[in-house]
């Protein structure tokens, strides 16, 4: 297809400059987002198995709730019922709680013994999965403006730029798209290969990227969009106003668990209840949030859909799945969420999203490298600005990945020194990240890239090794690995140690034998 030269040049400049401005934060957002596809597995992997109590049969739940709520004041108000076989049947927060991320949450787990005696234990929660999610949403940029995270807003702006980069990237490619779409030219020099793979990955995963750019902007600025929309709605209320409830309830009036199971069977056929979070039970404003799963439907997030109802009257207040046929907008909106969170196609979908996220990170990384190489060719000497940019690219991208991997690695060892590990996670991440960044500035991008990839290789390899050590020498008191979720985490770690080792060899070869002055 023919495109006028001046249009091409215009969009070429947009593409380049935006990539340079927004690429680095987006890189972190993407690879951390890949990891959040397995957020619950990671948390489960990091939590000592001894923290969870044994499950009980469904008909015993009523007895458990009744005993727990009569014995513990906190459990009169809020508790969560889990049906997952790896989790404790009943949990509630002894300290803090709520939806915000808190590092010092303390959770009480409860179950029944064989002869129906209440057993409980108290543990600080493990927030490793949540912290990675936080990194994904904010790129590790701390601070709040009002009730919004600054990092989220920055990623929102970066996503507007990212959308522009996508459009301009496609425009630039149009003239040569048909000819060189699948062309990977390994024999035309490594820059050509990098460019080809940058383009190929970009075009193949374009729909995914358009969705991600759109949803991230909305996640960051929905308050702003609603604000403007209220002008259009005028006097028409945007959201249903609920009448103030006046009936006070107490936990003794709570219907049996089977009531909820039947209700969900009634309104959402084919869905299975994963957990139920009861809150404000002894008040006029009680609620239960039920997480339901159906692998054959498009789910809002990869771990399920939600229905919120009054636990006493069973009136549904909110549902992320359509409950009547006339409701056309619920499935559309839920679909958009699902496309961001990879909530469809079950575990296969999660793996596809995991890979797409990593490929996205690759696009930003390779884009930055391509720009640097192009600049280098134009100038005889590396300029100050390209040196800074090179160190930033290497330091931020590899540094951030290294920091996460090191945090994963030390996670199991940290439990030897006490169980309040969440604060250590944060320290570990930021110390590793900034030392890597500093190192790449002091040592230069090319050399530090070799070393950082070597560290990545070693730490990735050490993660499964830790579990092997734990298995062979249980006396050290390291956690014994759980069964399935640990395979996922450790399998990925092993795979990546191989990838990083390969890149390490490649980078080293390039640095010592390639052109001088190259990055």
């Amino acid at each position, binding site marked *: 297809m023919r495109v006028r030269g001046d249009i091409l040049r215009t969009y070429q400049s*947009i593409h380049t400059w935006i990539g340079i401005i927004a690429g680095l934060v987006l890189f972190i957002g993407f690879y951390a987002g890949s990891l959040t596809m397995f957020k619950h597995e990671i948390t489960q992997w990091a939590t000592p198995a001894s923290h969870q109590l044994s499950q009980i049969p469904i008909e015993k739940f009523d007895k458990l709730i009744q005993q727990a709520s009569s014995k513990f004041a906190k459990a009169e108000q809020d508790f969560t019922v889990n049906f997952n076989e790896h989790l404790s049947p009943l949990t509630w927060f002894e300290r803090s709680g709520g939806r915000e991320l808190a590092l010092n949450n303390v959770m009480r787990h409860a179950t029944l013994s064989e002869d129906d005696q209440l057993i409980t234990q108290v543990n600080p929660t493990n927030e490793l999965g949540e912290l990675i999610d936080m990194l994904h949403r904010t790129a590790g940029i701390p601070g709040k403006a009002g009730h919004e995270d600054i990092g989220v807003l920055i990623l929102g702006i970066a996503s507007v730029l990212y959308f522009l980069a996508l459009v301009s990237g496609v425009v630039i490619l149009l003239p040569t798209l048909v000819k060189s779409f699948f062309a990977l030219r390994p024999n035309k020099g490594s820059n050509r290969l990098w460019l080809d793979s940058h383009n190929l990955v970009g075009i193949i995963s374009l729909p995914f990227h358009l969705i991600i*750019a759109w949803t991230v902007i909305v996640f960051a*600025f*929905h308050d702003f969009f609603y604000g403007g*929309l209220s002008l259009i*709605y005028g006097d*028409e209320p945007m959201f249903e106003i609920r009448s103030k409830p006046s009936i006070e309830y107490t936990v003794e009036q709570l219907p049996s668990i089977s009531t909820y199971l039947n209700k969900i069977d009634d309104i959402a056929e084919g869905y299975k209840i994963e957990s139920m979070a009861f809150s404000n039970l002894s008040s006029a404003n009680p609620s239960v949030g039920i997480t339901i799963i159906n692998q054959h439907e498009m789910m809002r997030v990869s771990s399920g859909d939600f229905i919120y109802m009054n636990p006493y009257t069973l009136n549904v207040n909110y549902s992320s799945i359509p409950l009547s046929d006339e409701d*056309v907008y619920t499935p*559309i*909106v839920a679909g958009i969420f699902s496309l961001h969170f990879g909530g469809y196609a079950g575990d296969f979908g999660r793996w596809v999203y995991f890979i797409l996220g990593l490929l996205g990170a690759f696009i930003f990384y390779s884009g930055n490298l391509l720009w640097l190489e192009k600049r280098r060719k134009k100038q005889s000497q590396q300029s100050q600005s390209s040196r800074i940019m090179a160190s930033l690219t290497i330091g931020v991208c590899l540094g951030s990945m290294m920091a996460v991997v090191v945090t994963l690695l030390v996670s199991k060892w940290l439990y030897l020194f006490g169980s309040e590990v969440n604060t250590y996670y944060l320290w570990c991440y930021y110390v590793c990240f900034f030392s890597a960044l500093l190192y790449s500035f002091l040592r230069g991008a090319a050399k530090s890239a070799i070393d950082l990839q070597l560290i990545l290789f070693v730490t990735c390899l050490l993660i499964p090794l830790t579990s092997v050590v734990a298995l062979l020498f249980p006396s050290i008191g390291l956690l014994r690995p759980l069964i399935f979720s640990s395979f996922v985490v450790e399998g990925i770690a092993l795979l990546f140690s191989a990838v990083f080792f390969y890149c390490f060899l490649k980078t080293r070869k390039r640095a010592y034998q390639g052109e001088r002055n190259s990055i």
Partner: protein
Amino acid sequence: MVRLSVNEKIQPHWWSKTLAGLLLGLMLAYGIVGIFAWYGYGGIDAPVKVQFNMWMICPIWILVLSFSYLFKTGFNAVVYLLSVNAVVYCAFFILRWLS
């Protein structure tokens, strides 16, 4: 391809085009979504429609923004986008006034 003379070519005008795309594009998005909100399927009070409307603002806005750079000059961008805005908002207010 015919060589274009200097004033036929697209001028960069980064700031004016970007601002036009950002502000007028956003206004245009609100206008189009506004008409849909009141007169699109389900009317103004269909359940969950407000969420759908909010979602639709963003893609219209960023699409207008990304193609604003195709205008020849920044001035052109402002004039064209303003006129489209005027048409959309006229339609919106006439429809509101009629019903």
